[in-house]
């Protein structure tokens, strides 16, 4: 009986995915891309006051939709908790998971997933009330720490304190909102998460300036979009959409100058924009796939500045996320 129930559960989830041909064809037939995002993380994925989803992770899905449909609005955003995100992707409820998800070996292998790349290089940090007068994470021994369950964060914090023989109390919650609410109510001294998220969640606090982010970054958190294992064509499409946005920035092709760029004689730009070669068709898309992405969404740098960088309320430094040519580590393979 137990087996049957468990198999029924499975059929509902996994059975469906086995039936379809390929995800790209499924998406084309469906006419809409299903994209898993957070339930509300300013800068990465959160609904604005009109109910439109905005953010860096949201715009990545819009770029994929633009490349396929020439319409960045043909995306259905599915808000997911950290806990539910992988099951949603495994079961085929979503086609892409673009939800500030850390790339780790076990997620890449035993969960049956593939990370397409990194759209934000992050690291884990700590936020604390300024009136606690703490200047370093090394002074946090004995503190109560709030975090979200089902994340790499709760594992890193355990490693960090254990390695330094420091005591702590971990209080974990299911959603980011519950976590920050508990921190705000004084249940914990410290809120820990990826640094970008600390800045984003700080905006949700009563007086953001009462809270400081400590200087220590205790882990590597390469965040990127994820697809299911087993469909190489779809894996390639999503991967190259990410690379295309980076290559577009590298060649200074922006939403504003895209029409002029189409007239460019530069062979690199011609290959990228499809005025030479049929690289888009090799992916199962159209020749002008990158033109569609840049026209509707913009290049990586534009998206970064608009959502988390200089032109946003978060104002996060580009840092590691600069292009390799400008001192960062964002680097995309060439299109040729």
């Amino acid at each position, binding site marked *: 009986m*137990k*087996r*049957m*129930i*468990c*198999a*029924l*559960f*499975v*059929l509902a*989830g*996994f*059975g469906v*995915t*086995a039936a379809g041909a390929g995800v790209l064809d499924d998406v084309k037939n469906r006419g809409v891309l299903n994209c898993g995002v957070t339930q509300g993380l300013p800068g990465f994925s959160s609904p604005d006051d009109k109910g439109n989803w905005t953010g860096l992770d949201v715009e990545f899905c819009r770029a994929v939709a633009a490349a396929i449909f020439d319409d960045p609005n043909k995306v259905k955003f599915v808000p997911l908790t*950290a*806990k539910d995100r*992988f*099951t949603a992707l*495994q079961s085929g409820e979503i086609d892409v998971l673009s939800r500030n998800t850390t790339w780790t070996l*076990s*997620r890449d*292998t*035993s*969960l*049956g997933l593939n990370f397409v790349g990194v759209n934000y290089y992050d690291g884990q940090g700590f936020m604390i009330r300024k009136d*606690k007068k703490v200047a370093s994470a090394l002074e*946090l*021994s*004995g*503190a*109560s720490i709030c975090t979200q*369950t*089902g994340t790499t964060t*709760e*594992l890193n*914090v*355990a*490693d960090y304190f*254990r390695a330094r023989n420091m005591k*702590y*109390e*971990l*209080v*974990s*919650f*299911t959603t980011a909102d*519950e976590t920050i*609410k*508990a921190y705000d*109510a*004084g*249940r914990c*001294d410290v809120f820990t998460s990826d640094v970008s998220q600390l800045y984003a969640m700080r905006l949700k606090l009563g007086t953001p300036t009462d809270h400081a982010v400590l200087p220590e970054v205790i882990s590597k958190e390469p965040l990127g979009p994820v697809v*299911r*294992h*087993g469909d190489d064509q779809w894996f390639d499409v999503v991967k190259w959409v990410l690379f295309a946005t980076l290559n577009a920035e590298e060649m200074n092709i922006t939403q504003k100058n895209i029409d002029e760029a189409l007239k460019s004689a530069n062979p690199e730009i011609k290959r990228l924009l499809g005025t030479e070669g049929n690289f888009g068709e090799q992916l199962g898309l159209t020749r002008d796939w990158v033109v569609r992405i840049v026209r509707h969404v913009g290049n990586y740098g534009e998206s970064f500045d608009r959502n988390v960088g200089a032109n946003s309320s978060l104002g996060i430094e580009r840092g590691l996320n600069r292009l390799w040519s400008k001192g960062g580590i964002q680097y995309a393979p060439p299109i040729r």
Partner: protein
Amino acid sequence: MSRSAAEAKAAASPRRRRSLITDPRFRSVVIQAVLLAAIIGIGWLLFDNARQNLAAQKIVSGFGFFGETAGFGISQTLIPYTEASTFGRAFFVGLVNTLVVAALAIVLATIIGFAVGIARLSSNELLARLAEAYVEILRNLPLLFQILFWYLAVLGTLPGPRESSPLLGVIYLTNRGVLFPRIEFESGSGIVLAALGLGILLALFLRFIARNQSLAGSRRRRFRWLPLLLIIGLPALAFVAAGAPASVEWPELRGFNFVGGARVNPELLALLFALSTYTASFIAEIVRAGVLAVPRGQTEAAFSLGLPRSVTLRRVVAPQAMRLIVPPLTSQYLNIIKNSSLAAAIGYPDFFYVFAGTTLNQTGQAIEIIAITMAVYLAISLVTAIFMNWYNRAVALKGA
């Protein structure tokens, strides 16, 4: 055609050859066998399909994860657990947390429920109305809301550890939990425990003598306070004799938090209060229904025999009411066990949260974990139901 009619017909004409197809008994066996085979077949198909799809997607399956290092912290561990422990250990930590909150809530809900239920029947108008208001308010608000109310609106507004001042000089109420001094037993405290056991045994023996004497017709000897004195006095004497082998550890504010002493987390308190007060409102109604269902004639008969009111309640009304109360009470206990999984909303590390939440996410093995979770809740509930059914039989009408 009913079976007995068919048998009668068959008996009436034994020689006539009858087709198996028209034999209702044979037919029903065949139909059931085919149905069973079909169900097993479909079940196997589903199971096999799942297995193949999992393998095709390279998703790891199996139960090997139980031995792997969990790596995450848990805020309330009643059995030894560190981040270096295994997922199997985390499984038991969660299970113990669920059992603790469910057991405490069952006891508390029963006490409150019986008190409120009896209060509703009181001839004191004010008391009865208050009890009615309690029932109507608590059973009509969603449980999740009540849990969040206790957690955020009541316990969340307590002062932080640095701002709190002790209640009665010993208990600290803070938004990190309730702290109180812990009695630390040292070696040699075993003798105190032995003395306590001896005291209880002696008290039971005295009670036995008293009962035997009253049954034998001789005037019942009353020991009054002697049993209580034995239970408290003997261990106290032993404690002094052993040279006070215990010390008190006081909670002390050091750095961010209190260190030492015993602490009850606000998550446990919020869940416990919400579960027990909510379920108590249902139990109160069950108790009221049970008492009211005892025919009035029973009470009147007892009174006319000259039994005092207290004896009537205890010996006549209560035993009959319990028969009606116990079966629906079992359902309420099962509800408490299942509702305790709402702990996830406030981060109380119960079984569902630790296992079907954190462990599922960190290992990604949804199917195995969901199946085990179902089996565990089923097992806890069935054990509770078996115990309550036994109790039900114990209070049921005997003989007849």
